[in-house]
């Protein structure tokens, strides 16, 4: 675990820029795997609308969370601790730890299948994906400061990979495939919305981040704009994806490895788009590791320990066994999570954070000199929130 060097102790763990990069680059990367095919299966040419609706809903939740951050020194869990007591906050940490594990179940299987498709010509041994858990195990032991930096480094990786892939893809897209607008029955589009709820419930991941983040004036606007930028990336990708594949889109799993393959130059110089895909995979690996890291962090807070190595090992071994056994039962898990348990995502990612708006918020402390700026962080014994993660 990286300790914060005494020289840097006066700095906040996360800053607004890193939060912006998280929502603008890491979150959209996670939408490029199974979601486009799934959405096009239900909504067909109208696939942009359910995605847009999800983004609008999540933007409201994000705005609420940023509002809470702007009004209170404490993060989300600190606010709960203030209002409902520390035991309640610990229970909530525990629930969110389980929720983050739950929310990783299907994406991990998607990632596993994506790896087998994108990285291998022939079927590799099933155990190959398990090496991922060494990486995530390592990341889970790190603090949120390292996560913030991973958001920074994801920015160039995502931009280079995404822009490169889109340049190669957009020429093959026929955007008339998206017409007529609202040509699909509303019921199918609404089903598409509900079934992809799990894919868009990323705002819950902001909750543990708020514990380590100090709001500065103007951050709210920047984060919301970044989230909008990230949404535009995804919507543009969906449009290009459906433009290229049209009615065949539902069959194109892991769309972003396929959209660029019709670029003429690739037949001459080889599939160098794969290098961009691998670059994007690094961002994806950071994102999925962060989901597990959030779970480890919440578990650690729930049981009140700072030693995360054992927790990290336990969770990663558990998920390693899960991916080993569950990949053959992908459809069963998909139906269970997407069709029957989609309300869990709505509850944890939308309802609970929004309910926090009704909690009593203490005014943010001002620095003693009266100038506007970040409040002094005081560490109190037994404080639940704002503990150095």
């Amino acid at each position: 675990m990286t300790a914060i060097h005494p020289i840097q102790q006066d700095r906040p763990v996360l800053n607004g820029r890193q939060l912006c990069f998280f929502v603008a680059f890491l979150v959209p990367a996670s939408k490029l795997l199974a979601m486009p095919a799934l959405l096009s299966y239900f909504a067909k040419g109208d696939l942009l609308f359910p995605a847009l609706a999800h983004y609008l809903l999540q933007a409201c939740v994000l705005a609420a969370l940023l509002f809470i951050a702007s009004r209170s020194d404490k993060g989300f869990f600190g606010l709960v601790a203030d209002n409902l007591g520390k035991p309640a906050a610990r229970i909530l940490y525990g629930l969110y730890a389980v929720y983050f594990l739950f929310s990783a179940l299907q994406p991990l299987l998607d990632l596993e299948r994506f790896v087998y498709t994108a990285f291998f010509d022939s079927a590799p041994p099933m155990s190959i994906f398990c090496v991922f858990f060494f990486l995530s195990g390592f990341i889970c032991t790190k603090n949120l400061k390292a996560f913030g930096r991973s958001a920074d480094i994801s920015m160039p990786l995502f931009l280079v990979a995404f822009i490169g892939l889109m340049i190669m893809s957009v020429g093959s897209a026929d955007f008339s495939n998206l017409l007529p607008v609202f040509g699909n029955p509303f019921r199918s589009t609404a089903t598409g919305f509900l079934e992809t709820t799990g894919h868009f419930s990323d705002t819950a991941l902001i909750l543990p981040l708020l514990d380590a983040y100090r709001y500065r004036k103007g951050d709210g606007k920047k984060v919301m704009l970044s989230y909008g930028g990230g949404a535009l990336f995804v919507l543009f990708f969906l449009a290009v994806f459906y433009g290229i594949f049209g009615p065949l889109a539902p069959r194109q799993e892991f769309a972003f490895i396929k959209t660029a393959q019709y670029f003429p130059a690739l037949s001459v110089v080889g599939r160098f788009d794969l290098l961009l895909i691998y670059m994007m995979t690094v961002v994806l690996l950071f994102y999925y590791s962060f989901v597990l890291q959030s779970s480890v962090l919440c578990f650690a807070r729930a049981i009140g320990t700072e030693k995360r190595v054992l927790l990290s090992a336990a969770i990663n071994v558990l998920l390693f066994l899960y991916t080993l056994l569950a990949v053959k039962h992908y459809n069963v898990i998909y139906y269970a999570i997407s069709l029957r348990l989609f309300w869990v995502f709505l509850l944890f990612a939308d309802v609970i954070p929004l309910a926090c708006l009704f909690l009593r918020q203490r005014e943010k402390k001002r620095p003693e000199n009266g100038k506007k700026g970040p409040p002094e962080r005081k560490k109190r014994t037994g404080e639940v929130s704002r503990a150095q993660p």
Partner: protein
Amino acid sequence: MEKLTKNLRDNIQSIKGVLAADDILVYSFRAGDGTECAVVYADGLVDKAVIGDLAARPLAELGIRKNPSDDGDRGEMNADTVKDSLLFPEIKEQEDVQELLKEILDGNCLLLADGIAKGFIVGAKKPPVRAVAEPPTDIAVKGPREGFIEDIKTNMALLRKRLKTPMLRFEISKVGRRSETNVAVCWLKGISDEKIKDEIVKRIGEIDIDYIPDSSYIADFLAPRKHSVFRQIGTTEKPDVFAAKMAEGRVGILVDGSPIALTAPFIFIEDFQSSEDYYVSPFMATIFRAIRFIAVFIALLLPAFYVCSQLFKLQLLPLGLTLTIASSIQGLPLSPSLEMFLVLLVLEVLKEASIRMPKYVGMALSVVGALVLGETAVSAGFVSTPAIIIVAFSGICLYTVPNFVEAGSILRWLFLLIAGSIGPFGIVLLAAFLLYYLISADAFGMPLLAPFSPLVPHDLKDSIVKYNLQSLKERPALFRSPNKVRLRSGKKTETKNETEKDSGREDEKPDGQGGN
């Protein structure tokens, strides 16, 4: 604490009793007034001619001149008389025998006189040093060619020559129980972060080892992560680079006996910067840096991707190239990964041998390496031509960044091993792991991968991209220099208050550039 007595013979005996080695010599002579004197020194470390001219001769002529304290008579010789007579700029009085012994071993000479219970340390040190020359590891086509040598005093002088400011400070300490090696921490007061300097001084003070042969030992003690393959302390052999880094806010460390100076905090991107980048146009510097960056990627990943393209993902190569490679590897007894492993091993062995081998055998080595091993191995069908080309190209590419060669070699092996076993997914995983390792690593509170992660937009002006000097008006934000301004626009001459301004009282700005 043993002290000197007034008896010269007793004093010499007690010193020789401890310093019994044959290279500790005693030169006895009589002063002009007949007082017995002796000079004790380590043979080979002092300038004997200087001792004769500036110490022994003036004392021998003492009787001719009058002692100013006497009324015309020749008085008894005392400490003041000796000090007044000697023409040395560096004279120190000392009574403690242990301290005197340390000074003798440090290369100074000790002057003793009968009847005086004090020793005079005369700074006539002249250890054998080589001339200042261009460092072999850091050659620049354009720019200064001076390099540090093994003598710390010379190195300090080389630095002082370039930074003629009273703000240049040295703090010298001795490290090593046996070697008593001089280690100088140098910094520019008002420009370097004092916290970092204090931390370095503290850590150096905590080193308790018997012998320090080189600055790499100090670097090892200062590095926060002991098992990292990546460097955590900067190194240079060039005074111009060293001075420039200090002017950016870093703290420097000079170690006696080592031509390699250390700088801290170190950031990863420094490996990709060459001194020459600052002496050519920024446009060219950017191109050079981009080439180095790409070359390192090629060096690390090309052998690994070559193996992957054959074993796991044929689409990585264009069809024509795949067919060419397929024809050349036909009939090879080794698998692609084993073949690449073998060729890479040959490269590493040749590299190691060519460094250690005497120069006149070098030609033979080239013939054996290139012709016998390369050509014959291909003809015999042990390895394929593409494998040799790839390894050779990878080897050349790695040397575009000389400071990264050690870490690069290890990483290349790792990538090759993982590519042969897990395929391209393994490469991506290892890359992600290394990236995360680097972003979570700090040295002296400075992130190793800055200014990319955490993103410090201000410092990107001198990273892969190199802006012109006029754009680099402020020092790197990362080093938290109290005095941020490097270039003042519109000022051609220094003002009277330059010294005061250097101390950092102006240009204070809130530190909002970097983050985490």
